[in-house]
């Protein structure tokens, strides 16, 4: 590992967070002479690629400079007072928990920008598209990098507007409604969350996450913790999304453009679970402890519910939409993440964090694939794709078909691929939950989760069978197979999926010490 000094790291992190914002503003301005490109649209899309690429490089450099021997320590910390009146500080930093998410975000955003460069979004002007994309990136990166409660909330909110417009302006069917539903649900959750955050901050006397984690909730009464966990948890659960607060997600996914879906599933959902780990777990352990069984229960129900809905969507004549199906599968998979957190054990939380990243990679890939499918066939309706005039990908576009199958099996948790470890660790955690939590209850959850994995396998295999297999219809126009830019976009995701599957330690080594520290009440 190259040795990068701390001040440089600080700069890197700050640039990572602020860079996209600057890029977003720049995107709105007319291109400077010399960078005009073929057309204004092309220039601005290229601008997007450049900026996100630069950010990706920055995060990679950050990861490289990160002291991997001490992942539990906040590194690249910047701590500047911003609004002394409210005791809000510009406190940035990365540790083993946030670093993977930062890299994942930067990567997915870059891939999205790249994809959009070759396939410009249909709808309003690309200028706004790029600006929004970059704004979205700022928000998500900031969410993972900030260490101040109010700032976290700010970052959490920042993603709302760009996502809303991405869906509402460049989306598909019923986009306005879906976008509205998305933003109302999340905002409703997040204002309640704000109240909880304020409660924590005001009662504990600081908004600083590091200080709160070090404090371990000792300066908060149990009542305060309970109220705070309900309030904050509600906001995070909506975002995660936890059953039964998930109903915005399928609509949003269905309506969103490919890029929106990728980022939504790959990054945005992670913000919720990250919040659980980063804020609730260390700052209000007693409160979370009281609610963990319920969280676990909702998570388990979510897992089963998600898979059942997917099953009903995939069955013949179910009029299922492929994007909707993936959305529901996300509900199920995020259930695993939540279950892992609910166990409050290092194993479970590590699993949750691993599953988080894995889900981001795989679902991102899946949405890209579905987007490509939609480009080619004009539809995401499973029945249409599986019918007589259907896709029959193995026959008509074998590489695309193979990739789809790969993503599907990765998602269902095939050992050796990324999806496996997270879910398994989460279930391990549930087998032996933290002291004081009802073991029988968690064993039931474990059973439900197990059932869920089976159902997941069932519907994903059905998807593969219905879409990839089948005879090539007579006289059907040939479907274009994986194009160059598509390959470029998807390869990193595939590679990382495999890497994380075969070498989970690369991730777990980062998260585990940090998780241990968080669960131990901040003592390192």
């Amino acid at each position: 590992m190259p040795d990068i000094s701390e001040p440089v790291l600080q700069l890197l992190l700050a640039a990572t967070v602020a860079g996209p914002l600057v890029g977003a503003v720049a995107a709105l301005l007319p291109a400077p002479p010399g960078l005009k490109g073929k057309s204004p649209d092309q220039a601005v899309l290229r601008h997007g690629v450049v900026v996100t690429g630069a950010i990706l490089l920055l995060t990679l450099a950050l990861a490289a400079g990160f002291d991997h021997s001490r992942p539990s320590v906040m590194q690249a910390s910047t701590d500047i007072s911003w609004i002394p009146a409210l005791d809000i500080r510009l406190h940035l930093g990365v540790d083993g928990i946030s670093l993977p998410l930062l890299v994942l975000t930067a990567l997915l955003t870059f891939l999205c920008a790249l994809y959009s460069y070759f396939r410009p979004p249909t709808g309003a002007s690309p200028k706004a598209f790029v600006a929004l994309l970059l704004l979205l990136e700022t928000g998500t990166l900031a969410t993972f990098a900030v260490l101040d409660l109010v700032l976290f909330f700010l970052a959490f909110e920042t993603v709302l507007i760009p996502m809303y417009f991405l869906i509402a302006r460049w989306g598909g069917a019923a986009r306005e409604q879906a976008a509205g539903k998305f933003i109302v649900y999340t905002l409703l959750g997040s204002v309640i969350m704000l109240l909880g955050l304020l409660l924590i901050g005001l009662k504990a006397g600081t908004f600083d996450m590091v200080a709160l984690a070090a404090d371990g909730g000792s300066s908060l009464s149990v009542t305060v913790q309970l109220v705070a966990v309900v309030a904050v948890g509600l906001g995070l659960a909506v975002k995660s999304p936890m059953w039964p607060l998930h109903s915005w997600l399928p609509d949003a996914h269905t309506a969103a453009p490919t890029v929106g879906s990728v980022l939504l599933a790959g990054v945005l959902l992670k913000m919720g679970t990250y919040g659980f780990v980063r804020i609730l777990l260390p700052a209000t352990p007693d409160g979370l402890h009281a609610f963990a069984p319920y969280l676990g229960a909702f998570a388990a129900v979510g897992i089963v519910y998600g898979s059942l809905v997917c099953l009903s969507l995939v069955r013949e004549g179910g009029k299922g939409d492929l994007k909707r199906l993936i959305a529901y599968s996300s509900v199920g998979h995020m259930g695993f993440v939540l279950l892992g957190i609910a166990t409050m054990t290092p194993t479970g939380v590590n699993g949750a964090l691993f599953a988080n990243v894995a889900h981001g990679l795989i679902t991102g890939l899946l949405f890209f694939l579905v987007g490509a499918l939609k480009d080619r066939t004009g539809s995401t309706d499973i029945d249409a794709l599986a019918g007589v005039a259907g896709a029959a990908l193995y026959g008509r576009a074998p590489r695309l078909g193979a990739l789809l199958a790969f993503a599907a099996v990765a998602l269902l948790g095939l050992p050796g691929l990324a999806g496996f470890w997270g879910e398994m660790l989460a279930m391990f955690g549930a087998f032996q939950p933290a002291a004081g939590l009802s073991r029988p209850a968690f064993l039931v959850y474990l059973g439900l989760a197990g059932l869920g994995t089976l159902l997941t396998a069932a519907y994903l295999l059905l998807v593969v069978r219905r879409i990839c297999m089948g005879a090539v219809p007579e006289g059907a126009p040939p479907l274009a197979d994986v194009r160059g830019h598509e390959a470029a976009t998807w390869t990193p995701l595939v590679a990382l999926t495999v890497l994380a599957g075969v070498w989970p330690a690369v991730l777990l080594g980062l998260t585990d010490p940090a998780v241990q520290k968080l669960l131990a009440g901040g003592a390192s």
Partner: protein
Amino acid sequence: MHLAYPAVLSALLFAIGVYGLLARRNAILVLMSVELMLNAVNLNLVAFDVWLSTTLRDTLHGGQALTLFTIALAAAEIGIGLAIVLLVYRNRGSSDIDRLRDTAETEADDDAEATAAEAALAADEARAATPYDSPAEKAEAAR
């Protein structure tokens, strides 16, 4: 003289004023009701002032001073109020406040133009709902 007399009188005046304010429909009468209320307050202030100075709790005569200002205030209000009522009367030939419905939000505001604009919105939305549901349509759009 007992403090109760002016106090009760003032309360009555104020109550009449409130009644007039709520029940009268002619703007001028409403205006007069408001003046009645203000004068009730004046009476109150003066009576309290005298009472307070006899008990030496207020040697500054704040009540009287405020009364003078209230009188001036009432005059200014009447001045502007009458001007506005006159303006209303000139513009519409009536000063019945119940018939002032021009700025109120009514169905009448939903004229043809409004319906058209909203219909355009809806159409836009509908188009968004089915962008290119079939390849054929998409092809057509591409052409």
